[in-house]
């Protein structure tokens, strides 16, 4: 970890009243002058990036007739919650929501535990087979998901786990990405700390539980959020494994609904999209700095 995250722009910007500080911190000589053009370009880009979200939210409270109008309206003329009401009456959304939450929570807890255990020994212990283990685990990051799809399905079917929570959860409990992220973090913990505990006779298990894990809270938070969202948005595998409605996750329900005979119930689809997206966006906005850390941690150096 390191430099990349440490040099992240501090959330506390220097006050405007300190021009000297400002000049050196924010605009080193030789970099572009902060200017209106930059703001305009970035602002325009942001409008383009955000408008699908805005449009989705605004249109979900329009009537079916208004959604279909040509030319399209931007602001809803007569806001209504009918789409949402109908959505919850027609579809078992609480069930889908519970399924999504249950699967994502289980997958997250599994990854936190298993990935940090392996990440810890990969970073802080020397043992026979370490290099090979690391290379094999990380090497699979490059293998397309398509390669494992069918053998995995056959395996899960043989285990009798099709259309069960086990089938939805087990294949994702231990992801190479998490090992990589945790290892990166653990490499940054001083060896002296761990060696001191070893010299004092602490077992590896005790060192892990009492020293390493408490230090790893920021990395664990990052991994938790990234894993949870990945699982929440996961789509292909649940689509294959969940065969009856009581096991559908939110994206599966929305996908089947939007490609089935209801394809033209625009209002319902948009309301469904809002229900899928909004919880995630709220979580993201509240915890966004962990995302930045996570991406920067695995990305650089």
């Amino acid at each position, binding site marked *: 970890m390191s430099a990349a995250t440490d040099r992240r722009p501090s959330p506390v910007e220097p006050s405007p009243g300190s021009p000297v500080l400002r000049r050196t911190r924010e605009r080193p000589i030789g970099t572009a002058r902060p200017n209106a053009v930059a703001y305009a370009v970035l602002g325009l880009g942001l409008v383009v990036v955000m408008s*699908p979200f805005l449009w989705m939210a605004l249109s979900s409270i329009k009537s079916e007739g208004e959604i279909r109008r040509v030319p399209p309206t931007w602001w809803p003329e007569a806001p209504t919650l009918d789409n949402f009401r109908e959505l919850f009456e027609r579809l078992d959304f609480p069930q889908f929501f519970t399924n999504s939450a249950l699967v994502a929570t289980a997958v997250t807890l599994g990854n936190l535990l298993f990935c940090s255990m392996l990440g810890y020994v990969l970073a802080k212990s020397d043992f026979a087979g*370490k290099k090979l283990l690391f290379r094999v*685990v990380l090497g699979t990051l490059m293998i397309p998901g*398509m390669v494992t799809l*069918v053998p995995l399905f056959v395996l899960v079917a043989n285990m009798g786990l099709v259309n069960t929570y086990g089938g939805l959860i087990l294949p994702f409990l231990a992801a190479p990405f998490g090992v990589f992220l945790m290892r990166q973090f653990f490499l940054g913990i001083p060896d002296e700390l761990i060696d001191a505990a070893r010299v004092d006779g602490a077992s*590896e298990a005790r060192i892990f539980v009492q020293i390493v894990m408490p230090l790893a809270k920021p990395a664990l938070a990052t991994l938790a959020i990234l894993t949870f969202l990945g699982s929440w*948005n996961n789509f292909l595998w649940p689509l294959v494994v969940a065969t009856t409605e009581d096991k559908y996750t939110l994206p599966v329900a929305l996908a089947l609904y939007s490609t089935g005979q209801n394809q033209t119930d625009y209002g319902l689809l948009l309301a469904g999209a809002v229900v899928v997206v909004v919880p995630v966006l709220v979580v993201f906005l509240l915890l966004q700095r962990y995302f930045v850390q996570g991406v*920067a941690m695995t990305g*650089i150096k």
Partner: protein
Amino acid sequence: MSTDTEARPGAQAPGRAGTLRKHPPLYRRRTRAAWGFALPFVILFVTFTAGPVLMSLAMAVTDIRSRDLRNPFAVEFIGLDNFVAVLQDPMFRKAAGNTAYFVLVGVPLTLAVSLGIAVLLNAGITRLKTFFRVGYYMPVVTSIVAVAVVWRFLLHPEQGLINEVLGWVGIEGPNWLASTTWAMPSMIAMATWRSMGTLIIIFLAGLQGVPTALHEAAALDGAGAWQRFRHITVPTMRPTLLFGAVITGIGYVQFFEEPFVMTQGGPLNSTLSVAFHTYNQFGFGNYGYAAAMSYVLFLAVVLLTLVQFRLLGERDTPRRRRRKAVPVANKEVGR
């Protein structure tokens, strides 16, 4: 890095430095303890990842079809026949062409847009940085299914926002998703929209590592903003750019979700990707054939990554000293 100084059991008598690590009994004990830690992950990993990867390879060299699952003895070893068949399949060629189009246009476009935004965020503005960063990252955390619902509307020929906006400047937009010409550019635009948030954050972190002293010196010597970007920022950022190109490339070669939710590969297979074709073949029960195709895709990922290393890896030093720019897999971190 500790990985490089790995001790071998019984390698040598205790020296002065690092005696504990090289002491055989202790090393053996530590190996046992470490594998104890690794075990839960390894069991899950072998069962649900490594096992299926090998299984898939085994399938690729047989004529296995879905009905053979109940009668495994009917399966025959057919060597590389599946691979030959894949390469001769006109649908595969079409899909490969589409995937190449998507990757060759999509990856540079995504990298360029993300780098541009990251540079502006880094040096062009002083306020609202977090606000912009969060905004640009939002599509990354959004479910593809919801994205598809919304984008199908935006791209709708009459009721869609995009053609409406184009209409303001007098352009009559096409029926995006129903046009063999415009469906693929629509996919590329969507993928760019969805992927650039991650790259912006990676590039922002990379930009922190560009020494300001170089910029200052160059500015004093009269270098303009573009010259400094071209000759200072880009070369210093090369490892970061390479990393961004590699992860984007790996993702884009596997191009699947966009056509799956938006077009089902249409119109007239113009958005059929290799991954999507593979998925369809699995669906038809042609397991051996599809497994072979998935390995062709894997090979494409590896090749693309190698090409990117060639193009973007260190090359400024004439004597080709290779350093630092390593893939995720063996990236050494922290020191």
